[in-house]
């Protein structure tokens, strides 16, 4: 199943507060890679939603597993802790299962599921913040892989930038981190990202810009320009 609009960019926000529209048939990828049990023809996403809404757990798993890896990566990025991300991922799936009957297809299933994930991640972060000795976010969960660049000094610069970016993202308030992760790391369009974050596009943009300004301040222009150039 093709992930929705990864890398998509919309340079101009036309209607900042336009409501979500669409139907299950408009879901980002309406064909599931899997087939219906025993019958042969591939199950459509809308068909899987209908079966899940009727109480078919295996249809729900088939429907949601297409997004499971990406959803888990999102949780890792937002939470920065693998054990917590695993726990929250299970909770997200449970919440989605419990709420699937209320899914009306006004947004894509992916958007709906991601929204649950962001809400659950924020809930987990709130809990963490209330703990007396908060668990520190592990920077390495937010870092990039090694660069294939040949020049060792350049590699070191890029590596330092990654560490600094990871720290800066981890230090953002959850709402700002969510904005920059959904838009810049996940590459979702502003409309999708705002819908997932549960705010208007204008509010989402404001969070995104604030997040970028804070990350820029934390990392520093010198590091960004040197490693980025």
């Amino acid at each position: 199943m093709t992930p929705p609009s990864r890398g998509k960019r919309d340079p101009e926000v036309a209607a900042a507060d336009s409501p979500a529209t669409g139907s299950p048939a408009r879901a980002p990828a309406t064909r599931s890679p899997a087939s219906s049990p025993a019958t042969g023809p591939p199950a459509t996403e809308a068909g899987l939603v209908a079966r899940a809404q009727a109480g078919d757990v295996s249809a729900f798993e088939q429907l949601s597993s297409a997004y499971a890896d990406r959803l888990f990566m999102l949780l890792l990025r937002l939470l920065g802790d693998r054990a917590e991300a695993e726990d929250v991922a299970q909770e997200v799936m449970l919440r989605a299962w419990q709420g699937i009957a209320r899914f009306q297809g006004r947004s894509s299933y992916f958007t709906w599921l991601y929204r649950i994930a962001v809400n659950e991640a924020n809930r987990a972060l709130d809990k963490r913040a209330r703990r007396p000795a908060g668990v520190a976010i592990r920077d390495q969960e937010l870092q990039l892989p090694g660069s294939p660049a040949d020049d060792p000094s350049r590699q070191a610069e890029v590596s330092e930038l990654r560490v600094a970016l990871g720290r800066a993202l981890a230090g953002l308030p959850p709402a700002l981190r969510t904005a920059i992760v959904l838009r810049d790391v996940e590459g979702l369009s502003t409309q999708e990202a705002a819908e997932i974050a549960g705010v208007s596009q204008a509010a989402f943009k404001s969070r995104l810009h604030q997040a970028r300004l804070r990350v820029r301040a934390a990392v520093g222009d010198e590091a960004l320009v040197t490693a980025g150039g």
Partner: protein
Amino acid sequence: MGIPGHTDDHRWSQQHLSHYVEGDLRRRARRRLDRHARDCVDCGRGIRAMHALVYAVQGLDGLAGVRAPASIFDRVRLAGGSESLSPRGA
């Protein structure tokens, strides 16, 4: 100090670098920032830094290839056993 309006333009430009690289500024605002950045070393570097930041963050794909844990549906299966014909809210 120096050029009248420069400080205002500078502060405003610094606050709108992300809008600038995102393409969220109207034409007049974009021209204002362009005009200021031509003469302001800080803002010129700020634009490059913001472009670099967005590019670098887009490349934060160190988790590519990470798989969801096999346990991800465990709670659904547990709940599904007792609610298999009626998910909550149905």
